[in-house]
């Protein structure tokens, strides 16, 4: 599947901002089963200094610094991505979760794709005993890793309500877990906390999902949003498998990966610092369109 993706973020400031510095993760990364044909980020006003690189986890990151006084900032990312993922892994064939745990703890790979970096509590995902206990119910002794993880994903989908008003970017795992509601970020964080609490590696994946329009109606421009899901490590043979607890589905050709990290803080699309005071309004629009349409 070929996608054209447009992701526009705009900030409007009540009082002008004197200067700003950003680390932007708005361009899709290279990933297994995913190629980036072209991508471009345009920033208005024009930055005094802009550099692009790849971070530790392999995400593309752009550092930009704006020195001009401005009242509006627009970040527009355009990219074309080809997604051709392999057939889903047969869950029953994956090793027992205890074996996965032991393999992860003794890993001799320190690269970002190895399991070691995704075992520990991270900035936004602290271990939370109730979340661990919740996850543990799906991890009976010797159960195949992916089978247990898929069940956990399904339970989160059933037990948690999707509610954009319930949580914010900085909501903790404990809060989201107590409320049993939230958005994709919260579902992913809760699932990651549960897995890590059991000693299992889990990563946070940000990206997009293609929304299928209702029959007979035109898809709405910009109606799509950025999305997030979980990477589950199934051992050296099977590697990382994407599970989307918001939709209770394995990650397939409808998902486009933007960035991967330990939690949202590692992949935040627009981390930054600005000098100025006063309130601001934020608007985000995402458009994921199959290129053939």
């Amino acid at each position, binding site marked *: 599947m070929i996608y054209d993706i447009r992701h526009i*973020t705009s*900030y409007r400031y009540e009082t002008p901002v*004197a*200067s*700003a*510095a*950003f*680390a932007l993760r708005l361009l899709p990364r290279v990933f297994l089963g995913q190629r980036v044909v072209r991508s471009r980020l345009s920033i208005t006003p024009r930055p*005094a*200094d802009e*550099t692009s690189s790849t*971070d*530790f*986890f392999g995400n593309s990151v752009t*550092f930009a*610094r704006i020195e001009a006084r401005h009242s509006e900032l627009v970040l527009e990312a355009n990219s074309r991505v080809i997604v051709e993922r392999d057939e889903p892994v047969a869950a029953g064939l994956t090793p027992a979760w205890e074996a996965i745990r*032991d393999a*992860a*703890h*003794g*890993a*001799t*790979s*320190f690269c*970002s794709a*190895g*399991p*070691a*970096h995704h*075992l*520990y*509590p991270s*900035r936004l995902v602290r271990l939370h005993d109730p979340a661990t206990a919740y996850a543990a119910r799906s991890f009976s002794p010797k159960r195949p890793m992916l089978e247990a993880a898929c069940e956990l994903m399904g339970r989160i989908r059933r037990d948690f309500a999707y509610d*954009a008003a319930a949580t914010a*970017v900085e909501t903790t795992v404990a809060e989201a877990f107590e409320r049993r509601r939230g*958005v*994709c*970020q919260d579902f992913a964080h809760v699932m990651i906390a549960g897995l890590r*609490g*059991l*000693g299992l590696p889990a990563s946070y994946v940000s990206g997009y999902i293609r929304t299928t329009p209702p029959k007979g109606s035109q898809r709405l421009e910009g109606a799509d*949003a*950025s*999305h*997030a899901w979980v990477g589950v490590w199934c051992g050296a043979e099977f590697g990382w498998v994407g599970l989307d607890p918001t939709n209770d589905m394995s990650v397939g050709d409808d998902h486009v990966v933007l960035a991967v990290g330990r939690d*949202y*803080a590692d992949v*935040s*699309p*627009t*981390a*930054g*610092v*600005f*000098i*100025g*005071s006063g309130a601001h309004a*934020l608007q*985000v629009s*995402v458009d994921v369109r199959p290129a053939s349409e």
Partner: protein
Amino acid sequence: MSLKSPAQKEKDRRDGNTSAWTKGYAPLPGASDELLAEGGTRPAWRRFLADLSQTRPDEINRSFAAADRRIRDMGISYRVHGELKERTWPLERLPLLIEQKEWRAIAAGVEQRARLMEAILADIYGPGDLVAGGALPASAIAGSRDFIHAMKGARPPGERWLRFYALDLGRGPDGRWWALGDRTQAPSGAGYALENRLIVSGAFPRQRSSLNVARLAPFFRDFRAGLSAAAERADPRMSLLTPGPYSDTYFEQAYLARYLGFLLVEGDDLVVRDRIAYVRTIAGLKRADVIWRRVDADWCDPLELNAASRIGVPGLMQAVRAGNVVMANMPGAGVLESLSLLGFAPALCQRLLGEDLKLPNIATWWCGQKAEREAVLDKLDQLVIAPAFGEALPGSTDGRGVLGADLTAHKRAELANAIRQRGIDYVGQEVVQLSTTPVWRDGRIEPRPFVLRVFAAATEDGWRVMPGGFCRVSDSPDARAFTMRQGVTSADVWVVGDQPVEMSTLLPADNAVRVVRQLGNLPSRAADNLFWLGRYLERAEATCLIARCLIARALELDGWSTGQQAAVELLQQQLMAWGAATFRANARPAAVANEALSSPELLGSALSIASAARRNASIIRERLSQDSVRLLRDLEEQLRAPADAALNETDAAERAQGALRLLAAMAGLMAENFNRVAGWSFFEMGRRVERSINVCRFARQFAFDGATGENLDVLLDLIDSQITYRSRYVVGPALVAVRDMALLDPQNPRSLAFQLARLDEHLAGLPALAADGMPEAPRRISLRLAAEAAAGEAERLDTAAVLDLEQRVSRLAEAISARYFLESAGARDTQPSGLA
């Protein structure tokens, strides 16, 4: 019959005296001791006590008392996080003594370990052979918050990740020194060690020289030279990056910056442009070549690391990765403080250096490995269980370990379960019995357990170890190492030699010095704080003057004229306008004056202002003399009213008078002792701006159009110009004459014209941003104001004209702030982002 030489007899006499000291001194069972070994008193202590026993007891007491005074006077204080007040540094009077022979072994061990740490860091952040080769599990590193992902693959300047290293040591019951933990992030304590040395050697000058105690200064000189040599530029600008005055060890940081001649900077003082770091100074951005960081790596850059950090520098990581700034230590070096790695040290030392560890490790097993985990679970009740990465253990709030044996059966089972599930988070450690050293308690010596921190610095010729250290002494007789808490005292550490030591200080050889009259450029933050220190002191003085004036008027209660009544009311109103007094109907003037001087609640009281001045001074204490810091403390004490004080006019008058004297002393000290580089200008400008505004305000209040003689008399009091006026005019106060004296007289150091002329001079002397010779914004205002005041005529002044002048001085203050200070500090915010 034995024949003894007179010298031998003399020695016996001395030894006999030392036994008086050691009588009743009983080391703890099972622990070794620094004073007593199997063969009796250890030689270093024998020498020390022999020397001491020749000293008369009252002389010793005087020495101790002098040391106590010194601790207080030098402003040695430290802050426990969250406390506004500083506390006195708890220092043991007796030093820890280590003989040179023993020290050589310690120093060799620390030097080796520093090399080992550097080699591990270079591999972790570089090729990664240790993990790939199975020598180090990936998850033993990845769990550390101080494994900084953004540094993977970076090449540090001079190929050094580590430039300042410390090792905590304890002596075990077998008499050997054991490595308890590595300090690779930003070790603290070296500055305290310096301070401790100054104080303790001040108390025992004779002993220090007769015991040939090794000096600390050369170590710091070499550390500084090593940092300097690593920089790109020949004459690098060196800074110490502090988390700020609320940091636990801020005092130490300020002291070290001052001692080493580094700029003390906070995150806001630095800025990164195009991957180059700069210091914001009053002369614009100046390249920051070397940064000694005391900010933990995770807080260094909100852009790439912890976005919540307000003490970092956005973009700093980019500058570090580009090699454009020498940072000690490199971000990420702190990963080696993880206890998970401790157990691997012996094998890694063999593998990387081909050597055996010279100082043995405290035995530590990381539970992320199966065999080690099983071993720890087997003897859970004999071991200390500690967090592998400094996170709190379940059911605990700090990062400390617990002794398995101390837990209830239920808690122990819970811990065992947690270790089975996530063994990667835990280590088991053997219990170490620390040795004890004598401390002085109630006129006698007693044994107390201690740990010793030894420092090493990277120089061009390899590692150099500081001959001494930072010794922390526990006040509890429990000698198990893991129980050492924060509430401990410290002791000076003497490395005792047989040969006299060479004298050396930070003074370099003559030919190595290029004469410079200005030490770098003044950071904007320091300028800001000096400016406000000046303003606060001036405001405190004005408040005291009003209070004194009010009391004097109130004492003449009999026969108050209506004019006097009105003047008293005006004075009270002025205090209220400054937030120095609250409104109360029919309040006695003395009560109002008391409140204005000493109210701890009112933010405008002289006491509150003096406290604000002292806080300001503590932020820039590396630039102030100890005398001035002490004066500020005295001022605060002077203004504090005793809790049970009846509101008595005489007391209040005396308090005001005493405070004014201290303020005058402070002004004199600043004028005579503060170096006339840019910093002094900012202090002076703060004072001049505040005095300008106040004199305008007083003139409007008391020399308004149609003011009475009583009003004008008050004004002369407030501007301290009674004597001058009477010497100049035989008649009583007249409006035009008083206005001239208060506002236009260029000879009167209290007049507006005098202040404006000084302000203009200071601004003229400050560095310019552009080389076009055009006056900058503040100077444009001051030029005009000074000229107007110089050419002004008192006859043409009225209240409206004075108000206009006052407002323009306020604008001048704003212009100074916008041009020279950190305009943006505090207004910084982190950009939130949107996500569905």
